[in-house]
């Protein structure tokens, strides 16, 4: 519940302040967001399965976003940034889908 409220507050804050993404962050923010979404879905799934742990959630959230951004940064340095970010998005997308499927099974039994 708090997480949901937090999400809403974040969206509202973003709409209110209309911040611009700093240039150095521009390539990494989308990937970090996708990683964070993945962590969030993972958290919801764990919660539904009754194995949710706040500490694990926080650590996984932070480390996921940082690692995702780091991979893209490394790819940029190696000259394969766009390919690598595509790869990261694909992997995270698959994970999000499998998490969503698990959540769906838990909630609707189908």
């Amino acid at each position: 519940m708090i997480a949901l409220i937090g999400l809403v507050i974040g969206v509202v804050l973003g709409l209110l302040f209309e911040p611009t993404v700093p240039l150095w962050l521009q390539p990494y923010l989308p990937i970090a967001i996708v990683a964070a979404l993945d962590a969030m879905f993972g958290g919801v799934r764990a919660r539904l399965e009754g194995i949710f742990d706040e500490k694990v959630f926080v650590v996984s959230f932070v480390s996921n976003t940082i690692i995702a951004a780091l991979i893209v940064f490394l790819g940029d340095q190696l000259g394969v940034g766009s390919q690598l970010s595509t790869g990261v998005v694909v992997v995270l997308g698959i994970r999000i889908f499998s998490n969503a499927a698990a959540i769906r099974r838990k909630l609707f039994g189908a």
Partner: protein
Amino acid sequence: MSDDDARRDPPEEPPEEQPEEPPGKSAEEPPGIIDLLRPRTTAGQLMGGLLCVLLGFALVTQVRSNQRDTAFSTARQDELVGILSDLSQRSERLRGDLRDLEATKAELERDVQGGTALQEARRRATTYGLLAGTLPAEGPGIDLQIGDPGGAVRSVNLLDALQELRDAGAEVIQVNDVRAGVDTHFLDAAGGIVADGRPLRAPYRFLAIGDPHTMTTALNIPGGVVRSLRSAGATATITSHARLTVSAIRSR
């Protein structure tokens, strides 16, 4: 994600195909959606909420910034470099035009008698006359001879040749004794081709004034005018001239 490890402990979910029992509704089973939404205030929950604030904020920021500039943000670096160099070339050219016009303006202002104005007007009249085809012209150019022993050349072939010459920068073009203008047309008629209402006889001769090298290259490209004429059974020869006279004029 490190909570993978924690998640692996419970037995695997049955695959989707197999019928499964509806999720447990009893108290000790995993929590349902209502239970999920019940607020609990522990430090970890607050931390998670904070992270979600961050996520929502970042999400909106990213979406906004994506909507703001779609034209160039998705372009690759070499495309951007190309656009930039195009722009700087164009601005350089425009600056040159501006200098020329400023010089003309200054000259016109200095010139009280109107001599320069007259000269300018004559120069422009000459230019327009050449373009419109009302003045004879002289200059470097090429002579394209199209021989037609088999009677295979159609009006469209001559039109292709004319357009190719225009594209290659020919300023003045004469076809046999017809001066080509903006509205020149070719028609297939019985016993030959009619250009602007006047019958043409083979061999067709194009006199074009312009850069000879450029025009020769343009006519000779693979699949171009000369090749298609030859494959149709006609002959085409190009000779460059340092000085060529186009004497035919269009009536005003």
